[in-house]
């Protein structure tokens, strides 16, 4: 569909373009496919015009879609996942801007951006306890609590998508796979591969020891100690010198009984200075 000079190649391309458009049923005016040798500038300007027209058409189609299926997206998390995947496949990010069509007409934006705010508040409220590292499960529980009875339910997939968007704010949001789930990092602690691997090792029991690291990862003592000291300094790990045998390094992020602790919405908001 690029209008370059005449020639066999150009003719073949034109035929291909026509065939493609016929297949998809998109209607293009005949003169737009006419064989005029245009300069790059004219072609560009015409393409812009074409895009503007298509955009208007698309907006109408999207409005129609929204009037029929907006509820589906709101209520059905499976549908949200499929929708996001389809967008990703074609190279479109429906959450990029609150001013985008998707956000404005389907309401997906507000849903995820608000979730982002709630995630930030929960992470800040719990930071003093877990150093800025939290399991996806606990984050999910706390966010649900904060949302209140009448708000809509959210899935873990929704949380992950919201967090991925938050990364743009440059504040050290990270998603670390451990065990069958994820740890969400909300402070810019420097965590390299070594640290991450030790976190994954600790997921089983909530703590890890130097011997365990040496046995499972085949590291030397010094390397293991350095990693553990870094985690201690960053506030992600607690040292237990009274454990039987050798020192245990506990990761509060992995404590499951933390689920039962109450944080009210007040506390969450107060955590922000």
């Amino acid at each position, binding site marked *: *569909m690029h209008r370059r000079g005449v020639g066999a190649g150009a003719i073949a391309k034109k035929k291909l373009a026509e065939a493609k458009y016929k297949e*998809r049923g*998109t209607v293009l005016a005949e003169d737009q496919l006419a064989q005029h040798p245009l300069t*790059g*500038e004219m*072609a*560009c300007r015409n*393409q*812009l015009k*074409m*895009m*503007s027209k*298509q*955009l208007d058409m*698309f907006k109408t*189609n999207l409005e129609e*879609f929204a009037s*029929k*299926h907006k509820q*589906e997206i709101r209520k*059905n998390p499976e549908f949200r996942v499929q929708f996001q995947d*389809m*967008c990703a496949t*074609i190279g*479109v*990010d*429906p*959450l*990029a*801007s*609150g001013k*985008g*069509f998707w956000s404005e007409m389907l309401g997906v*934006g*507000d849903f995820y*951006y*608000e979730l*982002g*705010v709630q995630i930030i508040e929960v992470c800040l409220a719990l930071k003093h306890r877990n150093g800025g590292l939290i399991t996806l*499960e606990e984050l*999910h529980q706390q966010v649900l*609590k904060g949302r209140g*009875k009448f708000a809509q*339910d*959210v*899935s873990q997939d929704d949380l992950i998508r919201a967090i991925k*968007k*938050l*990364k*743009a*704010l*440059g*504040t*050290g949001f990270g998603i670390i796979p451990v065990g069958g789930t994820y740890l969400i990092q909300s402070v*810019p602690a420097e965590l390299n591969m070594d640290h991450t691997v030790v976190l994954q090792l600790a997921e089983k029991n909530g703590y890890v020891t130097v011997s365990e690291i040496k046995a499972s990862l085949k590291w030397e003592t010094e390397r293991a100690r350095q990693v553990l000291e870094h985690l*201690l*300094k960053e506030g992600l790990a607690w040292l237990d010198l009274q454990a039987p045998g050798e020192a245990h390094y506990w990761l509060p992020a992995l404590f499951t009984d933390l*689920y*039962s602790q109450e944080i009210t919405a007040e506390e969450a908001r107060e955590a922000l*200075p």
Partner: protein
Amino acid sequence: MDRFVWTSGLLEINETLVIQQRGVRIYDGEEKIKFDAGTLLLSTHRLIWRDQKNHECCMAILLSQIVFIEEQAAGIGKSAKIVVHLHPAPPNKEPGPFQSSKNSYIKLSFKEHGQIEFYRRLSEEMTQRRWENMPVSQSLQTNRGPQPGRIRAVGIVGIERKLEEKRKETDKNISEAFEDLSKLMIKAKEMVELSKSIANKIKDKQGDITEDETIRFKSYLLSMGIANPVTRETYGSGTQYHMQLAKQLAGILQVPLEERGGIMSLTEVYCLVNRARGMELLSPEDLVNACKMLEALKLPLSGVMVIELQSHKEEEMVASALETVSEKGSLTSEEFAKLVGMSVLLAKERLLLAEKMGHLCRDDSVEGLRFYPNLFMTQS
């Protein structure tokens, strides 16, 4: 409700926890019973419910006893529910809360949400049937439900038919939605291709379009959610929308910035602004793009993006930080944050900057990071 048995709630070997959810109420059929607030746990083998107020009160049913499950959406004043249809209880069942019940189903009401995720996991377990491959102790096995293929209680057949109809109806709705969505996506994809072609022309300077046209192009990209491949210095990736936003932000943030020592992280700004808006929220990228136009955006030491007041000169701030630390002898980031009224994260950044400039030095121990005035500098 007579299928439940009392249990300690401890998991057996080979039995793993899949998901748990607080705030769940159990109904016997349609009737409310006294088990109104508990934690519901799903394992690979069982569904366990423990009373939140009295942890001793704990009961379970085997997943193998479940015929099927369906969702009941939330309504006004009503929580979302999962309806669980059960096989009849075997004659040798262990004791439980109810000896008999006229209902062959129970309802789980999720008063603190979590129904979506729980339903998803429960469906998965019902499909995978992991309990069949992972044998557990005898006491759990005696309660196995009837083998598939046996004749089920009559009432259940009618329910199954209703469910099948409902599934078909839902499927129809969903597939219609997907069909419409697919058509939309095809059109969207065409526009993505077109925009790439235009962007390439602009990049190769083949298309010499006006600034106006470039601005319009960027707003098209913004509307569609297409990443902007054109990196012209004048506007960055911003559009008119972002320029307007930038002006609004400058107005909104003046006072909050002053209250927080002249500096705020983008995360704080994001929360502040969106909480204030309530609706038509900003995406994180919207905020970043608007801030880039503010020229007040700076990138300090490590991975944190902030907004600073124009009046906020770095050297002044560092000098005052040094003064504060000297007054107190030494300070940690937390102590400094409290004194100055800024977030701990940014306090740390400022102290680190002061250190980099040679005004402070650190005492880094397992007890934490503490900063002291750099006497090596001043007293040599």
